[in-house]
């Protein structure tokens, strides 16, 4: 394909000379002209001279004759226009004007040099300076120049402001005119057709589906335009502020409804095109109306969608060029706020609609589509991620198709008739996710624990995949928490737990306490009497307080806070303790996994053990870090 060859050519500008050239990145060839392969000639190098009142002088490439183009009125003339002023360096031509040739002429206009701004302005400063050698005079000249520059800047700013005000009006005119064209070219004729008792090509249902709310938009924006036009009669003393503010208020409802329906309208038209040739053909005929300018109905329908954000651009620009304290400043600000709100509202609403559509589409992949859809499609739900993971329960391994939403996880089994839902893990009420340490059988595992403490172990195919799931689920849980918890009393829980010294904590663990001990083999938990005895940690029956088993603490390799060991997740439903109450002592060959029964006990045990195992391979937390971490987990 020609494409592959072309893709090696790039168009470059020589940094030093500013000249443009072409370079082939593969062959390192360079050339000044567009290579034949790319099929074109090099850019021309015409100049222009800026005249007064929007006139520019150009040179016609073919004849070398000058001509004049007005950027404001879009007129083109062969003779020097009267209002263009003097200052033209090139020879004047007395040829007849040719206003009909605008497009052609403008096509030939080439590079705008666009160098310094001052080439456009009188050169009086330069003249002053050259006449004066004396330093004082030079300083004077510089001062003058500064002042002139400042004045120029102010003038430019004012001119810019005027231009934006004009643009507000002009773009509104163009917009309303487009809406009216849509009405004239499409809406009215289609309605006439739909009204016909017999053989109507279009039904009113079609029209409602496609043009919902269009009438209201036309009314709202016509009113806005009328107000602008009226105010414009006071030119140059116009105040659009309040008009724009009021208009912005009137946009919210109609535009939200319109944009929400927009996708449906698009789909309806798409359907007509595919399945209803007669209707589609009719629309194509409408397109040939001179006013339609060859634009199809969809090109018109999208205009309201893009209009609201553009009011924002205009208002921001207006505010940037309006002096503070100006009569219009406040109304512009309010209008901008309102417009932003409407735009965001529309955007959000549309996002909701898109998300609902996505959920509906997802539901169709299940075998009991309707049931699933009933459950799944909710206004506040958002699809996040899907993939295949292995679900591990004791010794069972099952491949499951897993869907993560912003508030729940659903897993399913693929069958010939679609996906069969196997279970759901809501991410509400303190659900959590933990990465599990690597073992030979489970390299990339993480545990998801629901709000009731029921745990599920999932194994991914790679480290990256595992991390992606972990991060995504963690983010979802955080999101749920934000909504769910009006700052539950972390303070109440941690606030009145007194701080202790390390000797006090050591004393507490040496005296012994009841901890829940999790069994590494089956994940079951039971209360055990645990104490530190010399350099050992030992545990046994709660009633007898006999220590039957022990391990040497100097042999421990790490102290972990939180349910981070696999033992906590071995059995679904077994782990009833809060995550932040859990801690583990890691040894080379095994781990000791406990849950404390209250905050103070947790602080005692974790901090004392951290003190006794200072070489922990996992980073150790001090008291304030631990408190902060617990607070975060609550």
């Amino acid at each position, binding site marked *: 394909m020609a494409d592959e060859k072309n893709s090696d050519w790039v168009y470059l500008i020589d940094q030093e000379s500013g000249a443009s050239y072409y370079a082939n990145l593969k062959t390192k060839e360079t050339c000044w002209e567009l290579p034949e392969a790319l099929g074109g000639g090099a850019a021309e190098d015409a100049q222009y001279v800026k005249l007064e009142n929007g006139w520019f002088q150009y040179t016609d490439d073919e004849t070398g004759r000058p001509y004049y183009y007005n*950027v404001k009125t879009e007129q083109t003339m062969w003779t020097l226009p009267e209002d263009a002023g003097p200052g033209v360096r090139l020879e004047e031509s007395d040829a007849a004007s040719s206003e009909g040739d605008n497009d052609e002429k403008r096509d030939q206009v080439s590079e705008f040099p666009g160098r310094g701004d001052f080439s456009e302005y009188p050169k009086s400063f330069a003249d002053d300076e050259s006449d004066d050698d004396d330093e004082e005079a030079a300083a004077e000249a510089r001062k003058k120049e500064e002042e002139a520059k400042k004045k120029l800047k102010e003038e430019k700013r004012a001119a810019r402001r005027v231009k934006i005000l004009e643009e507000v009006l002009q773009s509104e005119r163009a917009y309303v005119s487009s809406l009216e064209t849509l009405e004239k070219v499409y809406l009215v004729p289609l309605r006439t057709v739909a009204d016909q008792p017999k053989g109507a090509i279009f039904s009113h249902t079609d029209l409602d589906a496609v043009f919902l709310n269009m009438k209201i938009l036309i009314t709202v924006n016509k009113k806005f335009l009328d107000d602008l036009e009226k105010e414009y009669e006071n030119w140059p003393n116009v105040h659009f502020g309040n008009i724009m503010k009021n208009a912005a208020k009137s946009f919210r409802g109609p535009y939200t409804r319109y944009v929400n329906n927009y996708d449906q309208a698009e789909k309806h038209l798409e359907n007509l095109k595919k399945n209803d040739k007669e209707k589609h053909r009719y629309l194509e005929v409408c397109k040939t109306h001179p006013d339609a300018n060859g634009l199809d109905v969809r090109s018109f329908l999208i205009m309201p969608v893009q209009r609201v954000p553009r009011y924002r651009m205009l208002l921001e620009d207006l505010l940037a060029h309006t002096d503070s304290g100006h009569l219009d400043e406040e109304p512009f600000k309010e209008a901008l706020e309102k417009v932003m709100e409407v735009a965001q509202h529309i955007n959000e609403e*549309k996002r909701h609609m898109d998300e609902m559509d996505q959920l509906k589409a997802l539901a169709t992949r299940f075998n009991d589509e309707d049931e699933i859809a009933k459950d799944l499609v909710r206004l506040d739900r958002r699809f996040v991620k899907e993939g295949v993971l292995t679900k591990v329960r004791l010794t069972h391994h099952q491949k499951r198709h897993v869907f993560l939403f912003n508030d729940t996880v659903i897993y399913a089994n693929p069958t010939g008739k679609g996906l069969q839902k196997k279970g759901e893990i809501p991410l509400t009420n303190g659900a959590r996710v933990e990465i599990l340490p690597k073992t030979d059988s489970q390299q990339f595992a993480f545990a998801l624990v629901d709000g009731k403490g029921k745990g599920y172990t999932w194994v991914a195919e790679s480290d990256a995949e595992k991390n992606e799931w972990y991060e995504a689920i963690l983010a979802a849980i955080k999101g749920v928490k934000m909504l769910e918890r009006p700052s539950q009393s972390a303070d109440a829980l941690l606030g009145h737990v007194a701080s202790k010294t390390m000797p006090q904590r050591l004393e507490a663990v040496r005296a012994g306490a009841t901890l829940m001990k999790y069994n590494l083999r089956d994940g079951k938990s039971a209360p055990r009497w645990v104490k530190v005895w010399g350099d050992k940690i030992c545990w046994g029956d709660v009633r007898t307080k006999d220590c039957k088993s022990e391990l040497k603490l100097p042999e421990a390799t790490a102290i972990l806070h939180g349910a981070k060991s696999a033992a906590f997740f071995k059995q679904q439903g077994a782990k009833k303790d809060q995550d932040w109450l859990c801690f583990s002592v890691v040894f080379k060959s095994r781990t000791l996994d406990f849950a404390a029964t209250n905050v103070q006990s947790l602080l005692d045990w974790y901090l004392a053990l951290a003190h006794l195992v200072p070489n922990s391979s996992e980073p150790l937390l001090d008291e304030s870090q631990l408190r902060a971490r617990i607070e975060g987990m609550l």
Partner: protein
Amino acid sequence: MAYAGSFDHLFKVLLIGDAGVGKSSLLLRFTDDSFEEHMASTIGVDFKVKTVVVGGKTAKLTIWDTAGQERFRTLTSSYYRGCHGIILVFDVNERETFNHLQQWLEELDMYATVQNAAKLLVGNKIDLQQREVTVEEATAFARKQAMMYVEVSAKTRAGVRQAFEEVVQKILDTPDLLAAASGETSSGIGLAKQEGDTGLCSYC
């Protein structure tokens, strides 16, 4: 301009990219050959129509500008529908705008309804010479995404026409796209010939 000038194809082209990279300027430079550094209009236009001749074929382009919509991504999604060509614009002097290209591409993949829409990467504002993205880097990125890369300056006009012609050429070179485009317009062209016909048209 006559609205029904004859053309072989009607293509819809979309300009996307971060705010301030010069999408509107690019569009106006191409369609009107104008550039206003200080007195440019704020919103420019919704879209412009321009007829180009590429490889002997006349293509009428409706080029849509998304300026102002960048912050409202879901609104922008509406524009992608039925696009044959998509021009992805960044500013070679603003690294951030280059870094965001990946996001734009993801969005494009999500929303574009025409399969294999022709994509072109355009680095704008090369006249400023405060480059933060090198040609090699941009080219490598473009190639990885199976796009051609063109450097332009809407201000000096350099490369602008080439960029748009490149997109048209790519659409012409992709049979699927051409089929999609003719599906849009074939009946339209046919009917345009019966302009004088009063039949259905009297309603319009």
